[in-house]
């Protein structure tokens, strides 16, 4: 096989892949999330018991991952809208992706303490 013939994609393709993957993950979470919230119609105890598992350190890491997926999907979704509706959107799609990634990193840093702080205190002691 000749070297260097595999198409590895560029920014546009990989953002498209990431948009699909994060979208599917968020949709499956949403399904579970509506089911767990429906427990408020069963009893306060049943609801509080399930929500207690959401406060464990392991699930806190999953929540941080959920925030990461949602923020990327939201920011990249705005980029897709700009590509479709802004006359210069297609020309600046790469610039907009790097802007998306920069804003995403800043927001993820900002979410680190609020989402993971309680888990870190529990695991490493306060």
């Amino acid at each position, binding site marked *: 096989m000749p070297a260097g013939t595999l198409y590895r994609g560029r920014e546009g393709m990989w953002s498209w892949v990431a948009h699909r993957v994060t979208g599917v993950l968020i949709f499956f979470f949403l399904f579970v999330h*509506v089911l767990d*919230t429906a427990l408020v119609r069963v009893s*306060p*105890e049943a609801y*509080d018991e399930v929500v207690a598992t959401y406060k464990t350190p392991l699930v806190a890491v999953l929540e941080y991952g959920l925030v990461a997926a949602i923020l990327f999907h939201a920011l990249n979704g705005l980029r897709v809208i700009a590509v479709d509706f802004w006359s210069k959107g297609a020309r600046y799609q790469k610039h907009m992706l790097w802007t998306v990634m920069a804003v995403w990193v800043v927001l993820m840093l900002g979410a680190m303490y609020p989402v993971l702080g309680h888990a870190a205190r529990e695991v490493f002691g306060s």
Partner: protein
Amino acid sequence: MSTTETTASGIGPVEGASVYTVDNPAPLIEPPRKRTKKTPKSTRGNFEMAAWLFMRLSGIVLVVLVIGHLLIQLVLDGGVSKIGFAFVAGRWASPFWQVWDLLMLWLAMLHGANGLRTIINDYAERANTRLWLKGLLYTATVFTILLGTLVIFTFDPNIR
């Protein structure tokens, strides 16, 4: 003289002269796929375009609703630690948050269901596989939307 040579009127050297004159005009050829009275009415409608537009419009609204939701539930006022039955009861006492959550539920479920429909259409190659996967998707979507709506409207803070 080259045989590939053509004149401005598109007449090759073999014809020598145009066969059409003012008294014998060239036949009018209609453009292919032109809609005429005989063209059957489209049976598909504009569903795919409506779905495309819905993804963009609902996406903009969802950015506000979902990021606001994440701020309230996971960031402000102690993050996830404060969530419990009492916290839910406090928020759903206000019609504002009921409408917020209801709108978020409907838009997010329809946005997500349409996204998964696109993915099934892209990757499931057999017609039967597509049929079953989409059947499962639509069932789960309708069930989740109805359940969530019922929970928001019938929530009872004094259930116990």
